[in-house]
């Protein structure tokens, strides 16, 4: 019988914090500037300069720690991580080694297979490194060009416990982390732009074995799908190796998106010995209860709690709650509308249907469009009060989206009011009956579906403005007596 293997995955996630200035100097963190425009003696590591810590960076790290259910350190300090690489002008990175800002947290994730708790080992602060452009490929180039704009941009590194057992769990964990950071509004979390980066430790072990197998460290996964695909490939590779009686080598591997496989980086980097030691240029941090409490107040309801509340208190299906809370602005918008409207499911249908369709078409986020939460509430009430039909509402909604007008004005100006007046409909209904004798006969012979056809004809005649329920009733009254 062949051995069954269990996958063990841990993730290291770097999150760029969206402060205005860098972590240790006043240079701007703005993305997309000309190379080396955002540099100064401090972030260039010129002799005689001293770093001074940005308070907001610590605020954000505390918020992240609290949101990940961590213990916040009362005493924390910075350390130097030494290595030679041109992306670091000082030949060391200021990071945190043994006393990170936060430790021992966990978050809840959900996949198709259920709900899991994933441990968060630590959250620590560090500075980002610069960007290298190699002249040709890294191994063949004669030189590399260095842009230090990113050097000193604040990062938090979030290290998970090796608690994930499938690539899908790893993806769910990363998605949950991203959502939490977005709800906290401390990062742009854009994987393509590099403000969210993910490395993974992957190993396999025979089911039932306590001890971990030899791991590979996986880098360069630049999108959510790359994380899942890279991990799936690596799990398959290791399983095949083990089943053939081979051994996994501890090494760094890089995910190659174009080749759809992981490639060994062995031999391309030196053995790591970072010679960490306390950063003498920065004094320690003491985080007291008051500071922690101040930050706790800044934390909004987090996505997982919101999701559960949408299901339990608003009675939304889990699917709806997932879509709405998956994007912070979507959830905020939804709740804004609910202040003036009390049918969550109907609202959810509109948000996930017409609204999301238009947002995607225009590449907008919810608050970019002409639709305000109050105007959406008013439009939904117009439907509920039979002033406009659901069909016409789609037309009204699109006009609201593009023009920013309120629904009443649009309905008035475009003459889109639903016709719910029997006298007004009488002639039209009679006309349709006269023109469609076959369908009329069918109805009279008990074919109920033919009624739908006649209602449709009236709707067409009135360009969707007739109240379909009323038309239906009128037809029945006229034909079935």
């Amino acid at each position, binding site marked *: 019988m062949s051995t069954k293997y269990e996958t063990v995955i841990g993730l290291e996630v770097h999150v760029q914090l969206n*402060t*205005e*200035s860098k972590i240790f*100097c*006043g*240079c*701007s963190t703005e993305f997309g500037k*000309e*190379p*080396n*425009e*955002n*540099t*100064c*003696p401090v972030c*260039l590591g*010129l002799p005689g300069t001293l770093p*001074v*810590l*940005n*308070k*907001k*960076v*610590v605020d954000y790290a505390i918020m992240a720690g609290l949101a990940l259910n961590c213990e916040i350190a009362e*005493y924390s*300090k910075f350390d130097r991580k*030494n290595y*030679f*690489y*041109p992306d670091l002008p000082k030949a060391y990175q200021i990071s945190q080694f043994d*006393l990170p800002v936060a430790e021992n947290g966990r978050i809840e994730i959900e996949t198709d297979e259920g709900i899991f708790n994933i441990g968060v080992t630590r959250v620590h602060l560090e500075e980002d490194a610069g960007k*290298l*452009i*190699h002249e040709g490929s*890294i*191994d063949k*180039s*004669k*030189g*590399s*060009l*260095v*842009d*230090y704009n990113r050097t000193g941009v604040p990062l938090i590194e979030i290290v998970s416990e090796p608690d994930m057992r499938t690539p899908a769990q790893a993806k769910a964990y990363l998605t949950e982390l991203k959502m939490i950071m977005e709800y906290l509004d401390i990062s742009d979390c854009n994987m393509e732009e590099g403000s969210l980066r993910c490395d993974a430790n992957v190993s396999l072990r025979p089911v039932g074995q306590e001890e971990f197998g030899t791991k590979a460290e996986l880098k360069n996964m630049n999108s959510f799908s790359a994380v899942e695909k890279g991990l799936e490939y690596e799990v398959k590779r290791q399983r095949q190796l083990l089943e053939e009686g081979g051994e996994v080598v501890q090494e760094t591997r890089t995910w190659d998106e174009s080749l759809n496989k992981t490639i060994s980086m062995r031999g*391309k980097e030196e053995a790591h*010995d970072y*010679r960490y030691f*306390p950063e003498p240029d*920065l*004094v*320690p*941090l*003491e985080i007291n209860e008051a500071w922690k409490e101040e930050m706790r107040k800044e934390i909004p309801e987090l996505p997982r709690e919101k999701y559960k509340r949408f299901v339990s208190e608003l009675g939304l299906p889990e699917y709806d709650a997932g879509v709405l809370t998956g994007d912070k602005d979507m959830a905020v918008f939804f709740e804004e509308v609910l202040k003036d409207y009390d049918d969550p499911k109907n609202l959810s249908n509109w948000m996930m249907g017409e609204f999301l369709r238009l947002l995607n078409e225009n590449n907008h986020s919810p608050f970019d469009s002409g639709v305000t939460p109050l105007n959406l509430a008013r439009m939904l009430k117009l439907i509920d009060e039979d002033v406009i039909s659901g069909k016409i509402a789609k037309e009204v909604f699109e006009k609201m989206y593009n023009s920013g007008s309120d629904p009443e004005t649009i309905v008035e100006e475009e003459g889109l009011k639903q016709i719910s007046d029997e006298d007004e409909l009488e002639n039209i209904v009679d006309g349709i009956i006269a023109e469609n004798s076959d369908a009329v006969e069918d109805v009279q012979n008990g074919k109920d579906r033919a009624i739908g056809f006649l209602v449709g004809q009236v709707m067409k005649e009135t360009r969707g403005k007739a109240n379909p329920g009323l038309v239906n009733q009128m037809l029945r009254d006229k034909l079935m007596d």
Partner: protein
Amino acid sequence: MIDKKDVEYAAGLAQLKLDEEEKEKYTEQIGEILDYVDKLSELDTDDVVPTAYTVPMKNVLRKDEVQESLPREKSLANAPDEKDGQFRAPKIMSD
């Protein structure tokens, strides 16, 4: 205490090139320093919290405010080599 291999390893990490004579000399000197520091382990420190920082200061922080950066010519002024507004570093990977 330490041998020549340790010195060679440390020199490698620091990217220092040492000749044989220097290796011998530093092995002896660093060994003496380590022996001297080792005296500290004679003390009982079981109940002492490790010292992370020796100056009695904490929480030196600045506001998150953007200050002017250096003009780019100045940032690049000391660069031994530059191209297109960027520092040019020599070949990274050895053959």
